[in-house]
């Protein structure tokens, strides 16, 4: 999660040693991703022997980063410099597609 444009992300409600000057409300970002057919095929094979599905782990990680990036862009657009109390949520929508969702409170730190 490097592309956060200098916005501080935290899932605490405060930032140690910094004062919150202004609350700007909820910001959110989401993305719906489907599995790649090649990855799906490999995962099908892996389902026989069990173990980690590395392709999926990476896919979900990338998707979550994208959701965070969208949230950060929203925060940036309304003039925030930090997003606090960040939460993640994942839901599988149909077979093969999942929604990754990130949300938090945009604030201005002094």
């Amino acid at each position: 999660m490097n592309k956060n444009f200098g916005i501080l992300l935290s899932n605490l409600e405060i930032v140690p040693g910094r004062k919150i000057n202004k609350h700007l409300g909820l910001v959110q970002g989401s993305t719906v991703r489907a599995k790649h057919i090649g990855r799906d095929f490999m995962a099908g094979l892996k389902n026989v022997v069990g173990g980690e599905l590395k392709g999926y782990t990476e896919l979900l990680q990338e998707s979550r980063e994208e959701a965070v990036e969208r949230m950060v862009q929203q925060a940036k657009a309304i003039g925030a410099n930090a997003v606090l109390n960040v939460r993640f949520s994942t839901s599988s929508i149909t077979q093969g597609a999942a929604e990754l969702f990130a949300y938090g409170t945009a604030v201005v730190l002094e």
Partner: protein
Amino acid sequence: MNDLKLNLVIFGTLLLIGFVFGQLAERRHYRAIREREAKLRSLLLVQTRFPPMFTNPPRTQLVTGNVVISVDYFKVVVAGLKSLVGGRMTPYESLVDRARREAILRMKEQARRLGATMIFNSKFELVSLYKGAQNTVQSVEGLAYGTALIPARQPGS
């Protein structure tokens, strides 16, 4: 008749492969988990939302860890039979346990790379991602995230 035989052979082979490799993989994974947990024990997970007051405030950063783990064929079959009689679903217990502990470890490893000493307010989430035939769970994603506290450099050091 031949078809039935062939199907039984395929089923038996998958079951055997699933059992042997699944057990091996699980044992290897648990060994790795225990080793890394011992190594990362000094990095504390604190389940409170408010860190204490610091005279020298640390930096904070969100850290995450995730993993997708799939069950093996043997476990799917055993779980299918277990669901007829009810009770404890042992095949899935180890699956979710591994997913969660691995996710926590990856989060901790990220925090350690950043030089953090503590992680506050960690949250865990577990999602079943893929439903196979008859809606059986085939893989789960474990996610762990929290705020890493990275100590500020002592003035003068």
